[in-house]
């Protein structure tokens, strides 16, 4: 070898051979390829099929008849209108519910903050359709507790409340969506420092004036963002409308979609009818992103600075009253009546001791094969879905973060993984139905279609978590394995996975929880042998056996609470919030 590099450089190097290329090839590439294939199967194919089916006749030829059928009947258009009304009203009511609570907890010296916190967390835990069941028990036209109380108090022969109505639906929807507004607003308020308000005060603005001209504009983007989120949540909701609107004899988009699936299923029409829901969702999510990430509001990006609680004086009692009122509507009342019904021999007989029994729960969990199997399925499917979602999300996050496939392809993968976030569950389900009801990928009727649909639906949650935790691992930790002779897979197995254990467990729980209660996609994809608790709860709702409905619901709530407690133990108390942040 020459001592003079300049001389060494002059001699030509050997040329590249195929043998050398094979020698140098990354032998672990198949793992990434499998993940990419799975992503195509879970996200791209269903959406593509949804679009294709909407333009297909049953024999496969092109047509626009589905769109004509979907938008030519007044009844169908009316349902679109109802969804719009539901979304806007629920969004508005959520602001009325959530903003005072957020302000009270973030900025004031109101007493009883802990209690309000706990009940908001409780509201998060109740699946919306279970809340709807609770409200049927409370405000059902004749037998509802509130109506009975009103009759007893006023002596009228009929109670004033009817939950099977648009106002009823709006109330129930708002009760279980206002926590979003609360969270958004509170985190925005937490970032407005007292100094900014002081600055306004010093210039002569009073408390109200300050709130109007300084605080409110600063949190406005968060409020709008939350409003949009609630709107989208409300129009994509299936459970509550199905429980409340169907008996009330009106339709919203989601229940109408469901009706298209009554035998014989009109998949094409359903797909066509789902398009506005999909488009509006995608569009509004984009707007929401823009609103909440805008850089102009320094206060929302900068550090908090010092914050002092506002001294409310006597005003703290009315504010606390309002907070308690909201929590009573969303949490205390429904939970009380659900527990009562679950533990009662007959819920109508009231809160007497001799009415108490564990028979319903025992029956639900052990004696009735249908509910027992559904409980097992719920755990099994949610667990499998969570496992798949976390594994896939983890691989994609790794591939993207470590730039194994180039930046552009990585961007596409990341986008695809996050895409289900903006696809309403019901639309995703129709896509899955369209894609996997015939050979060669006949999944319909098996548990797999539910598992994969759940996994897809909650993939973004798993991805946001995995991406964040992979970003926290220094790439040199893996480089150190490789330079010492380990392959990339060895590095992942021996270093990355052990370090990610806890956050992967966290991601697993965060997918498992919504997986156990998912209704809107399950309702289109289940079959007799693959019922889960949420579907069963909905299925049994027209039998009027509220003791059983409440028991099923209680089981779900207990599962969720147990999972959250495990999460707290494993990951600390903020692990739920990371999901909202992501």
């Amino acid at each position, binding site marked *: 070898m020459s001592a003079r590099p300049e001389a*060494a450089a002059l001699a030509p190097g*050997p040329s*590249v051979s195929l043998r050398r290329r094979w020698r140098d090839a990354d032998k672990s590439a198949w793992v990434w390829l499998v993940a990419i294939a799975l992503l195509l199967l879970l996200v791209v194919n269903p959406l593509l099929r949804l679009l294709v089916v909407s333009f297909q006749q049953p024999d496969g030829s092109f047509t626009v008849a589905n769109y004509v059928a979907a938008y030519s009947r007044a009844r169908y258009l009316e349902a679109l209108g109802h969804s719009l009304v539901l979304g806007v009203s629920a969004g508005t009511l959520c602001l009325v519910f959530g903003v005072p609570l957020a302000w009270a907890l973030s900025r004031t010296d109101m007493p009883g903050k802990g209690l309000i916190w706990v009940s908001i967390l409780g509201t998060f835990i109740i699946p919306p359709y279970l809340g709807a069941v609770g409200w049927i028990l409370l405000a059902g036209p004749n037998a509802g507790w509130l109506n009975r109380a009103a009759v007893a108090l006023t002596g009228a022969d009929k109670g004033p409340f009817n939950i099977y109505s648009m106002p009823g639906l709006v109330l129930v929807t708002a009760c279980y969506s206002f926590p979003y507004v609360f969270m958004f607003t509170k985190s925005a308020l937490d970032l407005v420092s007292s100094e900014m308000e002081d600055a306004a005060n010093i210039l002569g603005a009073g408390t109200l004036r300050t709130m109007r001209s300084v605080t409110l504009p600063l949190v406005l983007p968060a409020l709008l963002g939350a409003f949009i989120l609630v709107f989208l949540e409300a129009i994509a909701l299936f459970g509550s409308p199905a429980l409340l609107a169907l008996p009330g004899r009106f339709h919203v988009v989601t229940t109408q979609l469901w009706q298209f699936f009554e035998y014989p299923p009109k998949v094409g029409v359903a797909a066509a009818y789902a398009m506005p829901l999909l488009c509006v969702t995608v569009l509004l999510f984009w707007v929401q992103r823009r609103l909440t990430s805008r850089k102009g509001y320094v206060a929302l990006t900068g550090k908090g600075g010092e914050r002092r609680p506002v001294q409310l004086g006597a005003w703290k009692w009315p504010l606390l009253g309002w907070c308690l009122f909201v929590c009573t509507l969303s949490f205390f009342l429904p939970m009380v009546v659900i527990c009562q019904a679950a533990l009662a021999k007959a819920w109508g007989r009231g809160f007497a001791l001799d009415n108490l029994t564990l028979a319903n729960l025992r029956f639900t969990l052990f004696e009735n094969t249908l509910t027992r199997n559904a409980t097992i399925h719920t755990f099994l499917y949610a667990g499998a879905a969570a496992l798949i979602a976390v594994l896939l999300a983890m691989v994609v996050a790794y591939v993207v973060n470590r730039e194994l496939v180039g930046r552009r392809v990585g961007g596409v993968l990341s986008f695809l993984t996050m895409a289900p976030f903006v696809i309403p569950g019901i639309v995703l389900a129709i896509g899955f139905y369209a894609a996997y009801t015939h050979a060669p990928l006949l999944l319909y009727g098996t548990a797999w279609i539910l598992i994969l649909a759940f996994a897809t639906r909650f993939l973004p949650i798993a991805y946001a978590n995995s991406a964040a935790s992979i970003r926290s691992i220094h790439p*040199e930790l893996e480089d150190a394995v490789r330079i*010492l*002779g*380990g392959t990339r897979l060895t590095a992942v197995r021996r270093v990355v996975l052990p370090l990610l254990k806890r956050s992967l467990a966290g991601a697993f729980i965060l997918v498992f929880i919504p997986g156990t209660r998912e209704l809107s996609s399950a309702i289109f994809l289940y079959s007799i042998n693959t019922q889960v608790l949420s579907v069963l709860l909905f299925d049994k709702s027209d039998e009027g056996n509220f003791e059983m409905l409440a028991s099923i619901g209680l089981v779900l709530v207990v599962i969720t609470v147990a999972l959250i407690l495990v999460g707290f133990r494993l990951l600390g108390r903020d692990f739920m919030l990371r999901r909202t942040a992501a």
Partner: protein
Amino acid sequence: MSLVLRHVSRAFGGVTAVDDFNLALEEGELVSLLGPSGCGKTTTLRMIAGFLAPTAGTIEMDGEVISSPESVLPPERRRMSMIFQSYAIWPNMTVAENVGFGLELRKLASGEIRRRVDEILGVVQLGALRDRYPAELSGGQQQRVALARSIVVKPSLLLLDEPLSNLDANLREEMRLEIRRLHDEFKIAMVYVTHDQAEAMVTSDRIVVMDKGRIEQIDAPFELYARPRTRFVAGFIGRTNFLEGKPAAHGVDFGAFAVAPEALGLEARQRDAVVVSLRPQSIQLLRGEAAAADGRCRARGVVQRRSYLGEYWDYQVLLHGLAEPLRVSTRAHEVHEAGDAVVADIDPAQLTVIR
């Protein structure tokens, strides 16, 4: 082991990070890549390791091409080892597990692994900490774990990426010597990336000075300091004064003094202006006579400013005929006040012509 880099370049997007890098590493040699941050030294190191593909040129090990734009032998097959800036000690493994991992990957028997781990932990004085986890170690101890882990596998080539930059000054000085000692003990060829010239001078057989992706000069530390070939090298390795000289009838005229072209190693017919580097400690400050003796140059000047740095004085002296003051370092007992008239005594042999 032999390593040759031929015309190696690397671009990121449109930005060239390394441009036409040529180097041949001798058996058992310790070469450092020295330059300011962003000069391409870490990029070069990562290309040698196989983490990055060159966009042009080839890297050969023992006559076989291991890196070219078309194909790169993955790092795990190069039998090298590396010390990272972040140390990259695996937090989920104990000290002994960290050190033994490379041997495990090389499929050694567990008894042999244990023996060699204990031996190397003895060498870096970490025997007592073998079952600790990295979070329980100090920065210096982590650094030693990284050292032990990379040496225990007896690599064909050890790469070091700013290994000492996260340590405090005292520890840094100690570890420099330690690295050199380990090099001498195990005779491992090393490529050492650093932005600290003292670190490079202490540890290296040869230093590659880089700037903006290009090699400025490759030389032994002494040569580099005494004979910098470019303005960048002269300025980067130690402090220096730059003087511009114009050829004239009485020699090359620097304004304050003139030197015969031959004394600078130039031809007598030199026509173009030249720039020379003159180290601050190559200038002596005298009082009184300005008459030059036995081929030395002398020039009158005034002390403008001075700073006392304990080990030496740092003067700024404006020589008559120059626009900029010269930096002059003298021993601590040679004291001049600001405003004093002095005579600068310069040996022409200390003037280094640079490109």
